[in-house]
């Protein structure tokens, strides 16, 4: 990865910075969401430039896709009149921000060089983890506890969103003919992509999260285009959301009781376990994110 700053790099960084400032400053909601989507896209490019393809994928799908859908959907309700801050507080805020930035900058510049100790450890242990791609190995073997908790966070978010939203579920949207055909065309592609990304995860950038987000996006499209079976309501929906975490914990318990210890994946069956877990995680994240989207979906009017 060439470290010297090329024209493209300079453009990219300034683009990201400008998009960030614009996303925050622009007064109208719709414009702010639009600029934020651009910011998400540029960020994805930046991650690719920083040689982190997984993250670029995730940013594109999650940042742009799911969060974007949520934000655009939130535009439906009108912008309540929020009192503008007094000029004085704005100035103080900006000054404080710059001081904080300068402090952070000088701290960051004083950082000592990378020890590179952990990457070396990852490389010489990766053989036993059952996943060639280092990021997936870290996520699903070395630091599998973090991933487990992250799924718990998603599950908690789903509980929270459903608890907060009124119980009245968005009814099936009756969509016009064209949308239905689009859905027919798009959904299989999305499903295929999701499965491919899941499989690729063990060897190339990809994995549970990106696949999960794809599944989520697919479900959202399905819901918006009114296809019947896309509903994640009812017992099945709840079960699918929870299955990821339950499977992961049961795996942990079984390895603790039967295997050598919590979440210790034996070399022989590690890759199978990882793939299995990733599949279940993908389903759970997908249905979970879709459910969060649905929870936001019911228009306030209908909510009463």
């Amino acid at each position, binding site marked *: 990865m060439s470290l010297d700053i090329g024209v493209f790099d300079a453009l990219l960084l300034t683009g990201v910075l400008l998009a960030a400032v614009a996303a925050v400053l622009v007064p109208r909601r719709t414009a702010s969401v639009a600029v934020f989507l651009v910011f998400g896209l540029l960020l994805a490019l930046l991650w690719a430039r920083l040689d982190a393809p997984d993250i670029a994928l995730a940013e594109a799908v999650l940042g742009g896709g799911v969060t974007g859908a949520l934000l655009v959907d939130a535009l439906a309700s009108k912008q309540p009149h929020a009192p503008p801050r007094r000029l004085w507080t704005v100035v103080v805020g900006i000054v404080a921000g710059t001081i904080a930035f300068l402090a*952070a900058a000088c*701290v960051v510049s004083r*950082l000592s060089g990378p020890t590179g100790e952990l990457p070396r450890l990852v490389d010489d242990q990766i053989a036993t983890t059952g996943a060639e791609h280092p990021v997936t190995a870290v996520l699903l073997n070395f630091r599998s506890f*973090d991933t487990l908790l*992250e799924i718990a966070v998603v599950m*908690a978010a789903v509980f*929270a969103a459903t608890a907060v939203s009124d119980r009245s579920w968005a009814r099936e949207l009756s969509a016009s003919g064209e949308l239905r055909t689009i859905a027919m065309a798009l959904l299989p592609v999305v499903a295929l992509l999701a499965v491919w990304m899941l499989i690729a995860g063990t060897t190339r950038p990809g994995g549970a999260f990106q696949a999960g987000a794809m599944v989520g996006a697919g479900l959202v499209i399905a819901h918006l285009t009114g296809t019947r079976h896309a509903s994640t309501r009812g017992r099945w929906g709840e079960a699918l959301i929870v299955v990821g975490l339950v499977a992961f914990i049961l795996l942990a318990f079984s390895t603790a009781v039967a295997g050598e210890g919590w979440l210790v994946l034996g070399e022989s069956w590690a890759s199978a376990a990882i793939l299995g877990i990733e599949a279940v995680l993908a389903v759970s994240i997908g249905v979970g994110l879709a459910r969060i989207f649905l929870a936001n979906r019911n228009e306030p009017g209908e909510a009463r």
Partner: protein
Amino acid sequence: MRYPALLPALVLLPLLLSAMVALVPRGPRRLAGAAASSITGVLGSAVVLALMIDGGSWEFALAGWEAPLGITLQADGTSTAFLALMTVVGVAVTVYAAAEPRLAGGPDFWPLWLVLWAGLNGVVVAGDLFNIYVMLELVTLAAVALVALGGRSAAAPALRYLFVGVVGSLLFLLAVALVYAETGTLDLLQVTAALEPGPVLTAIVALTLLGMGAKMALFPLHAWLPVAHPAAPAAVSAVLSALVIKAGVIVLWRIWFGLADDATAVRALGVVAGIAGAVAVFWGGAMALRSSRLKQIIAYSTVAQVGYFAIVLTLADGSAAGWSGGVVLVLAHGLAKAAMFLAAGTLAVAYGTDRLSHLHGAITHTPMTVAALGIAGISLAGLPPTFGFVAKWQLLMAAIEQGAWWWIGVLLLGGLLTFGYTAAMVRATFNRPGDDEVPAPHRVRSVLAVVPFTLAIASVVFGVFSAGLVDLVAEDPTVRGHG
């Protein structure tokens, strides 16, 4: 007698149970939730007992990978104390919520409560910095959802709490990033050994102070607490004030006493934190005196008590008495605050409101609840023979060891202020002459009075028989690490 393998179960079991309880239809969910919570409580107390008997500190490397690569969980004396608090208050809140669903916010309470409990246990035993970040997010998310259960008007406070929580988490995540950039490892013990004094360390400590200050509502960043805690259902606000605040406290203490050293910048931060703490004590107390609603008074009292936790940063620097005083203060505050909020909930059920002006006659009709409120207030004020007094005693000793007479003033005057608003609350429940016959408007189930009362009595019993617990906590590795 060492079972470090039990540590992950503290987090994973409640999560598993929460997932299962979520699948139970809304009707019998209360029963399932109560059963699940009691299982978690039993597990928690088993681990705490084993830790106490063993006395040492346990480490456990997850997924079989040692420190820098994998995630380790570690439980020392302090975590034992925090775990004990979370188990005791957890069980009490479970019984309370099971008895009166209205005070827990309906059936949605149970899965979120189990997730919250898992997160709290996780933060206390976590040994890896990023793991702490994820645990804190889990706790904040669950806590926000629980606050939102308090009805439609609770949405705004819940959102405000979420914003502050997430900002706090981001600041902490930046600190974690700096730690990794500087030392190349995320394990707490390795980081404390590897980090040398310098601008980076000061930045890390400052960011953690800011981040955790937001999460535990330390003075300048406290505005969300007096809005969020009263809006939540009673059982939830008890958990928030008694336990969730402590998650931020233990992370701040672990990192502060692990990393802080005699560098002037860090010492200056300590003074700033101390001043913020002192202002919090007096401001919280004054606001509590002025407010006219029970739950608001108790919420402001939390803001005041959090001020003490910040003062402990300077008091416990290198003094075992200060450290044990701080931890005992956390426990005493936990017990007392849970008792107070649950008692307020019971009074709200009995009298339909928590406005002080409408609580006349409560002392005759719900004597146990008012007694719980009074005793808890006495423990918060740090008056003998309660648990709070033990904490105040140790902190005063630490203050004198360091010759910091101004902290003595804050500690003593803060106690008086605390007693001021406790007396105001108890006084409001006396019956005006002649209306003794007016019964409480709604009958209250006895469980709702017994639970806060037992917590209050527990703080008296611990106050007298506190030797065992204080010894357990006194010699804590982080203090010896650099003290």
